[in-house]
């Protein structure tokens, strides 16, 4: 019961905050001499031009591809870190150490400009994909993906470690190899633990793509800064950019909730935080806080 009351209070709080924000904005608008051109704001949202649409699509596609690379590298990174062989552990450890220990901005610049100028890899355009196949886009995807992989390694590792060892033993006793047991038994269960933080990572990724401004990838943020360079309406335009990002992350929050529902099969009840928790204050779920799933009752 108290939960429902708290939810009600929370809902009122959010509504109140939103109303106050609008009031302050309107009041602030009136208080200064700045000439507001709200058409820039509304047009960017309701009648986006090619630049903005391309920016949205680039942000989305770069995020999806980079996150996918990140998850794949994360699985290998996690398995590497837990491997019996010490060279494998060393390689995985080195990878995570480097990419978590240096700024993403430095990694992006190094991978695109550093490798390009020296001729180690010059990032040629992939013509058939047009703007989406530009060398800078490829470099951005690689940089974001490899960086994300380092973080995902830790998340995947925690997920795998949260599965009790009896599961691996049961799989082995049935004649499965380590690889089969991982694919069929361990990772599907770990996925349930991994998905909430993975969703958080993807939410971050949608916003972090804006760092690709340093290598001039015309994603969402760059699209708006181009517009601002000619129109000089930073208040209206960057407010519109924020709305676009918010739309992307909100849509993702809804999708993620569906994914978590489906992964909850066999574990009873709804799993993971509610939509509201997801949107207005993400509660990271530590693996050791999850309910024990096996054993007698």
């Amino acid at each position, binding site marked *: 019961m108290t939960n429902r009351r708290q939810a009600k209070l929370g809902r009122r709080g959010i509504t109140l905050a939103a109303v106050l924000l609008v009031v302050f904005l309107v009041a602030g608008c009136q208080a200064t001499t700045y000439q507001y051109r709200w058409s820039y704001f509304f047009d960017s949202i309701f009648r986006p031009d090619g630049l903005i649409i391309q920016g949205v699509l680039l942000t989305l596609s770069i995020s999806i591809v980079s996150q996918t690379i990140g998850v794949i590298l994360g699985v290998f990174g996690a398995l590497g870190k837990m491997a019996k062989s010490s060279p494998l552990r060393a390689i995985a450890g080195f990878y995570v150490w480097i990419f978590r220990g240096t700024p993403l901005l430095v990694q992006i610049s190094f991978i695109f400009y550093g490798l390009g100028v020296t001729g180690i890899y010059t990032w040629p355009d992939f013509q058939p994909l047009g703007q989406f196949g530009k060398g800078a886009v490829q470099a951005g995807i690689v940089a974001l993906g490899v960086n994300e992989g380092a973080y995902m390694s830790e998340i995947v590792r925690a997920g795998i470690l949260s599965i009790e060892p009896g599961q691996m033993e049961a*799989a082995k006793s*049935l*004649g499965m190899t380590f690889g089969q047991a991982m694919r069929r038994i361990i990772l599907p269960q770990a996925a349930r633990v991994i998905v909430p933080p993975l969703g958080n990572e993807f939410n971050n990724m949608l916003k972090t793509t804006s760092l690709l401004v340093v290598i001039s990838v015309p994603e969402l943020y760059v699209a708006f800064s181009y517009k601002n360079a000619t129109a000089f309406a930073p208040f209206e335009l960057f407010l519109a950019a924020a709305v676009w990002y918010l739309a992307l992350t909100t849509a993702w929050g809804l999708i993620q909730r569906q994914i978590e529902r489906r992964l909850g099969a*066999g574990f009873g009840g709804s799993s993971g935080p509610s939509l509201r928790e997801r949107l207005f204050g993400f509660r990271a779920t530590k693996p050791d806080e999850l309910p024990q*799933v096996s054993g007698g009752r």
Partner: protein
Amino acid sequence: MSEPTESLLAAIGGAPAPSADTVVEATDVHKYFGRLHVLKGLSMKVQRQETVVVIGASGSGKTTFIRCVNHLEKIQGGRIFVNGHLIGYRDANGRLVEDRERNIARQRQEIGMVFQRFNLFPHMTALENIIEAPTHVRGTPRKEAVATAFALLERVGLEAKADAYPGQLSGGQQQRVAIARALAMKPALMLFDEPTSALDPEMIGEVLDVMKELAHEGMTMIVVTHEMGFAREVADRVVMVDDGQIIEEGTPEHFFENPTHERTKAFLSKIL
């Protein structure tokens, strides 16, 4: 043979025929956990269709031993043969060299194991748990695996629970599914590691009943348990393990009427 679902073993196509009369032959097995010497030259033979019950105090090494039989634990000395195959190792001029993963996995297909904590796969239904290894390890066609699984579920009295997830089953039901899961691989040998120790008392009977049926039908079994009633009724032979060695073995009658070893007497007086 009668109806295919008349017995547990009929459900998996009859009692598997081991290639030798001696299913398990363990000689002088040594096992260390770090510096702790857990198995100190343990030797044991199990004949085809025999049910051997292993008893002993906790920490005596009885569970460790059966985990060595399917190579869930490495051994540091001795040899374990199942159906004439050296388990887990290759013999390189008298030295043990761990075998390739693929070979170990293949050997384990012949050895079913039932765990104390069931270890069912929680993300799969009872049916999926049972057909998982036949379809993905043995390559049995799904239809055939499902038919076998239903026959097994019927025999353990759980055909209505085929689509239930382990989390929706009681401990006793989970353990019966776990037994069916192990049997679905048509093993030549079944290992039971304290299969009723994690169960509420009222559920122990239903699991023991399945195990009794299996023993009577001629499955070769090694059972680690504290259930002396089961040992008395079902065991062909009882083995007492103490401090990593077998200190006494014999028929259930021998054990429960006149045990000879002091440690056996002390142990049985505490447990009976």
